[in-house]
């Protein structure tokens, strides 16, 4: 600790801390302009100058570390003169367009002028300002307003890692430009705009929409991905004007991604469903809620009587809140008496979570997202950035600022590869070999914590024996990776005192996913990822509330709390009902519909045509149904097919809780109203429940939440409930009980020799929702199929060629993008675009399929 005095006040602060931090500690405000806590100090504006006794020159408080015995003065005539003159210089040629500047009212330059009483300007110089840059997508750059604080450049480089911006040119001509001088082509997270102290960088979708003081802010969470960043929805006259987030007090430290900042457009899409609709005689006509709900409940009652409850089925969604998912499964199980319920988690997170539960006792991510940042080694499997950008930022902090080693594994080069110490791009199908080989190398090098394994793993000897029997040469052959590289990566993981392992969908939804997850679980064990408070094991799902959906038991084999459905007696008694004995999962439901056994399907915010594999088969099946209920927010192919359409609400329109991949429970607060007659989904379920049961069901959050807590045994932690109503739960790291973990051997399968099409989310989109957002579409308009240069050549196609992509499950048309980063033998297509409908090419069990690509 260091002792110093600031304006006569004694302060004690940790070594290395700056004068600014010390002043803040004792409530002394030193004016700043370029300072931003989450980036390295820049010292550009020089406004935070202070005097230090015994030192002739004033020094900047933001980047001068406090030194023992230092005596600092923050206010003096000299300092005032300096500060004023610097601000006067900043005002030379600063345009007087505050009346139409987006930043007016929240402009740091305005504030500092006002605060420092700068009311004249005596310097002059020729105006060399660069013209405003209009051609960047989503973001406008007005160089004349720039104070060159470099916050944008640094947040882009240091926090986001996109490194898209630079200071171009010298002297007074200097301005913020893109790295290559071409129009901005980046991740479009807009964090540069968020940190800009003036109106230099502007969000085009927000431009001229509102003055800051006209906006009312609602603190809620973004549910576009499973990281669930905390956001402020800025609303003017009932419409979302923009999304912001606050540094320091949010789990995401104020940073947002393209989805969080620019993806909200779907909420106000003209495709929003605003009134219930009912199909009669082949015509879909708008109706009132009573009419729609009666039709649904009548159908349910009739069919139940006619064919039994097993003729019904329902699919819920990670787009719904915990309470909604809970009520959905209760509605089906208790009110209808049917356990044919499932969701798209079936194709990714659900089997993965079950394996992690069985082997390690985990129900989700083992630690909190921000505890990744201190990990000394991180293994990222797949494209973490596209699926949960906030996790990317944590990994970058760990590996770029905190000296962690980064191993990026998977089938393809991803954004994080450029920061990797070891990039392990393995051949499709060899993921298990890769994970097993790393585990073996760690154990062979004596780097596994044997005491830990002995204490917690019940069959540790089997683990050692299995790894000992593993053939490394075969692993090298299967993965196509050099042994030295495997050894290097294993050494990083094995020697690090703390490890984080993150699995994205490339692995979780891959062929042989269950074996791969098992193998990664073993790797997590031997590398120590589950040991201690730092790091952890994190399965990611790209969708917002998949974790909550599983926790609520929306799957035929699960009860709330991810308990086994086989033990349903206590739930049945709590609900006072008899529960159906078994149920069908999504695969079974599809088959059931095809066989005519299931005749009624309730799709609650779930679109199998867009988000399930074998979409073509689903499309045919849905047409066979007697009755299809579609509860959703946007019109789609699905709503055209529905017998009843129930307009639901978007996350920003509702209350409730959602659970992030790291098992934080977060609170949703409504920022805007659902459009037209659309209703919050919970109300729809409750109304239907009332229709179906004798007594009315009320939507009462506190009783619903206490019922959830009681039945699930989850969500019992006391959460922070501050004024904003947000609760970033103070989640503790996972602690296993002695001998509670089990090793399961994972056998590697065969490696594919054909051209494999890998599908995953686009960096710019989240599910299909954001494809209804004009801003997100401005940077990623449509789907495509990416090919390696070799494969493109082989197929005789080039960038922009129209091709037919055929698998044994279906075919689609797409434009080709030749991608130098793809290895030969691997093609890629994004899953977000309904028009591309790449899901129709996939089998029910994987995100990857062998395809033929031919010119169409």
């Amino acid at each position: 600790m260091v002792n110093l005095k600031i304006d006569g006040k004694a302060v004690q602060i940790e070594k290395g801390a700056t004068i600014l931090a010390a002043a803040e500690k004792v409530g002394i405000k030193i004016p700043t302009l370029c300072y931003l806590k989450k980036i390295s100090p820049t010292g550009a504006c020089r406004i935070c100058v202070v005097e230090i006794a015994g030192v002739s020159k004033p020094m900047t408080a933001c980047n001068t570390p406090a030194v023992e015995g230092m005596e600092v003065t923050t206010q003096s005539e000299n300092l005032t003169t300096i500060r004023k003159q610097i601000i006067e210089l900043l005002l030379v040629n600063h345009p007087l367009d505050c009346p139409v500047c987006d930043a007016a009212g929240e402009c740091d330059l305005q504030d500092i002028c006002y605060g420092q009483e700068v009311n004249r300007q005596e310097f002059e110089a020729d105006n060399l300002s660069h013209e405003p840059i209009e051609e960047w997508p989503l973001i406008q750059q007005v160089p004349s307003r720039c104070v060159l604080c470099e916050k944008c450049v640094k947040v882009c480089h240091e926090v986001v890692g996109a490194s898209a911006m630079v200071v171009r040119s010298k002297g007074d001509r200097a301005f913020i430009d893109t790295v290559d001088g071409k129009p901005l082509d980046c991740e479009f997270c807009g964090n540069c705009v968020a940190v800009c102290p003036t109106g230099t960088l502007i969000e085009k979708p927000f431009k001229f929409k509102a003055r800051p003081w006209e906006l009312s802010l609602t603190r809620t969470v973004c549910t576009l991905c499973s990281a669930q960043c905390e956001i402020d929805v800025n609303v003017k006259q009932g419409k979302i004007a923009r999304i912001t987030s606050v540094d320091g007090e949010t789990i995401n430290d104020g940073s947002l991604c393209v989805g969080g900042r620019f993806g909200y457009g779907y909420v106000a899409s003209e495709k929003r469903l605003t009134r219930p609709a009912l199909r009669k005689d082949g015509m879909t006509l708008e109706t009132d809620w009573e009419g729609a709900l009666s039709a649904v409940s009548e159908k349910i009652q009739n069919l139940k009587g006619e064919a039994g409850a097993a003729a019904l089925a329902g699919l819920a969604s990670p787009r719904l809140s915990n309470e909604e998912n809970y009520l959905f499964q209760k509605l089906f199980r208790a009110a209808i008496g049917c356990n044919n319920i499932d969701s798209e988690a079936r194709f990714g997170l659900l089997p993965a979570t079950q394996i992690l539960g069985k082997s390690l006792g985990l129900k989700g991510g083992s630690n909190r997202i921000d505890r990744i940042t201190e990990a000394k080694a991180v293994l990222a499997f797949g494209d973490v950035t596209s699926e949960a950008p906030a996790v990317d930022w944590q990994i970058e902090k760990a590996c770029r600022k905190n000296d962690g080693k980064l191993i990026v594994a998977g089938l393809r080069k991803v954004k994080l590869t450029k920061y990797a110490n070891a990039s392990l791009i393995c051949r499709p199908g060899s993921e298990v070999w890769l994970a097993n080989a790393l585990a073996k190398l760690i154990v062979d090098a004596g780097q596994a914590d044997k005491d830990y394994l002995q204490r917690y793993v019940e069959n540790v000897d089997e683990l050692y024996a299995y790894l000992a029997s593993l053939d490394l040469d075969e692993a090298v052959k299967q993965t196509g990776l050099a042994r030295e590289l495997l050894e290097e990566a294993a050494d990083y993981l094995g020697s690090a005192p703390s490890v984080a392992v993150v699995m994205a969908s490339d692995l979780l939804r891959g062929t042989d996913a269950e074996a791969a997850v098992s193998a990664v679980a073993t790797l997590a064990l031997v590398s120590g990822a589950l040991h201690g408070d730092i790091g952890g094991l994190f399965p990611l799902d790209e969708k917002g509330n998949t974790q909550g959906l599983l926790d609520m038991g929306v799957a035929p084999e699960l009860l709330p709390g991810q308990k086994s459905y086989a033990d349903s007696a206590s739930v049945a008694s709590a609900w006072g009902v008899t529960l159906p004995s078994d149920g069908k999962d999504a695969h079974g439901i599809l088959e059931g519909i095809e066989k005519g056994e299931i005749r009624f399907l309730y799709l609650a915010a779930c679109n199998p045509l867009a988000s399930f594999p074998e979409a073509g088969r689903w499309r045919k099946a849905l047409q066979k149904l007697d009755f299809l209920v579609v509860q959703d927010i946007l019109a789609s192919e699905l709503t055209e097919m529905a017998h009843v359409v129930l307009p639901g609400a978007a996350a920003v329109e509702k209350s409730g809780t959602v659970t992030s991949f790291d098992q934080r429970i977060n609170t949703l607060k409504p920022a805007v109203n659902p459009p037209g007659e659309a209703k919050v989904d919970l109300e729809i379920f409750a109304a239907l429940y009332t229709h179906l049961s004798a007594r009315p069901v009320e939507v009462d959050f506190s009783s619903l939440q206490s019922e959830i807590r009681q039945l699930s045994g989850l969500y019992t932690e006391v959460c922070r409930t501050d004024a904003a109503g947000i609760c970033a739960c103070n989640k503790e790291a996972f602690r296993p009980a002695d001998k509670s973990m089990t090793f399961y051997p994972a056998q590697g399968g065969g490696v594919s020799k054909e051209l494999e099409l890998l599908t995953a989310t686009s960096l710019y989109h989240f599910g299909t929702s954001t494809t209804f957002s004009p801003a997100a579409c401005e940077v990623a308009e449509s789907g495509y199929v990416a090919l390696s240069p070799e494969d493109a050549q082989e197929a005789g196609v080039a960038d922009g060629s129209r091709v037919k992509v055929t698998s044994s499950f279906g075919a689609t048309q797409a434009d080709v993008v030749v991608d130098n980063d793809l290895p030969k033998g691997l093609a890629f297509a994004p899953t977000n675009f309904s028009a591309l409908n790449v899901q129709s090419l996939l089998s029910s069990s994987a995100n990857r399929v062998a395809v033929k690509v031919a010119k169409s």
Partner: protein
Amino acid sequence: MSQVVFSSWGGKVVDNRKGGEADLASLKIKLPEKYLNEGKIGAFFGWDGLLVMNRDVDIVALAAEYMKRVQEKYCCAKCSPGKRGTKVLQDTLARILSGHGEERDLTVIAEINSLLEQCKCTLCMTSAKPVQDALTHYRDDFEAYIRGERKPNPAKVYHDKVTAPCTDRCPAHIDIPAYVEEIKDYRFDESLASVRRNMPIPAVCGRVCPHPCEKGCRRGLVDEPVSIMVLKRVASDHEWLHHKEPPMLPGQKKGKKIAVVGAGPAGLTCSYYLLLEGYDVTMFDMLPEPGGTVAVGIPDYRMPRHLLRRDVEIIRSLGAEIRYNTKLGRDMSLRELKEEYDAVFLGTGAFKSKPMGVEGEDAGYEGFSTGGINYLRAVALGQPIETPKRVIVVGGGNTAIDCVRVALREGAEDSILVYRRTRKEMPAEPYEVDDADEENVQFEFLRNPTRLIAENGKVVGVEVVEMALGEPDESGRRRPAPVPGSEYVIPCDLVIPAIGQDPDLSYLEDGDYGIKQTRWNSIVTHGGTMMTDNEGIFAGGDCEYGAMTVVLAVGHGRRAARVIDRYLTEGKAYLDEEDAMEDIFSSLGVFDDNEDVGIIGGLHREHQPKVDGAERAQNYDEIELAMPESQAVREAERCLRCYRVGMVAID
């Protein structure tokens, strides 16, 4: 020597405009009289003030031109006072010069000059100094312009350059503040690119450079110098530890061939910059592997050879051919090279061990090494030599230290260093002496060998005489003198003399190349062009300067490559503005060790972790471990970014 009309250089005002005489020499200012062949230097305008040698120089025009260049060419714009302040200065001075100035402009200039004290770095800050000096001492000239009584009379030509004390002290003139700042900004790739603009073997110079730059580090005037060398290693290691492909590409083919003799630091550097320009380069080396003295003279525990080879491979992959085991004068002659290639660069090093001048040295005793450099080479190349139990190494330089430490690793039980002065006077880097100490090397200071003691043709000991230190000699070190009658014998099995190396220029011996040599057996080159007396043959590194440092060889290699390019494209070997100004600054001196920096210190220099203890002397694993990047960023934060701009006005 030039007469000084006015000088505010060095904190002292000398004004001879109304009489009085002084020349540069009397003011101890080492500024050349002429700028290459372009003309006399009429004035120097720079960070420390202004120097006027020609009374007709238009000071207002000089100041206006200087500020224009500072603002337009050099100001990084990354701080508010610098970016806009120098612009206001530029415009105000230009307005005065154009006859539209007002009296209040002079107040503005003074105000901005004072405000520039608050700049983030010293580039714009120091640019205010000569302007303010001009305003103070040549105020009449400014006022004459304002009154409309004068018309501009600019100099024939102005030349300028940016530098920094560290950059100036670095023989390779690396833009040190740039690469340090890029580390501070977490831009390791950019940092390495900045290093590579002047130095293509960063893994080497990030480890074994004697870092003269750090002696010119202004942070050292406040607390301790920035760890400049280690930060270079951090940038280099970052690329290596991330398996990154270096971004450089060979230049467009020029269809001209250059022979580079010696694949040591000078030859590698020269080749690298020639390859970037598109020349075909063939390197010849007498050794079976690349790196020259770095490979076979610096032990692996200081410079792991796989990393040296990585640096070399990066250069080679730009298209060079390297012919190993090929010695000039033995396998080919200089004449052949000259005929076959468009230009030749000689970077043949200094491999000839200096004799000790003691009795028995030439007797061919077993147990007497032909020299430290040969001993190190034999070990490095894995040649079958045996190191006995008791070894004496004679000398006090880095080679001597390397020898005693290598001897330990080769199995010696007693490794003894004999040096005629004390530890304080040793030319070896102090930390290396400490390292040797830690490894249990024994030191015999103030001893000088006088005679080898042999039995049956085999060395059994060295007779030494005690020495006493007298008055300082020209090197500033106290001169040792033998104490009569103090001789005694230190028993040993091997004696390794390591008192210096000379270039082996035997390949010049047939004498018909016209290449002159100095009396110290090194090659003569001219005017900083690195060209020898034989047009088209260039030389650099130890063979040109005598045994010196890796970084000097790098500086030579780069300068030679630049001049070779001009020679081959324009038919003339000459220095450009960058080269010439570099040399002017070097002569003038940029670091002022009396400067009062005026800022708070108290921040200690960060050190890279190290393998401690004598046990490390059992193997050749690298001793200094990589500095974690977060620590490197913290260290880079200590840099004061001491840029400064100097400009000459040529009559």
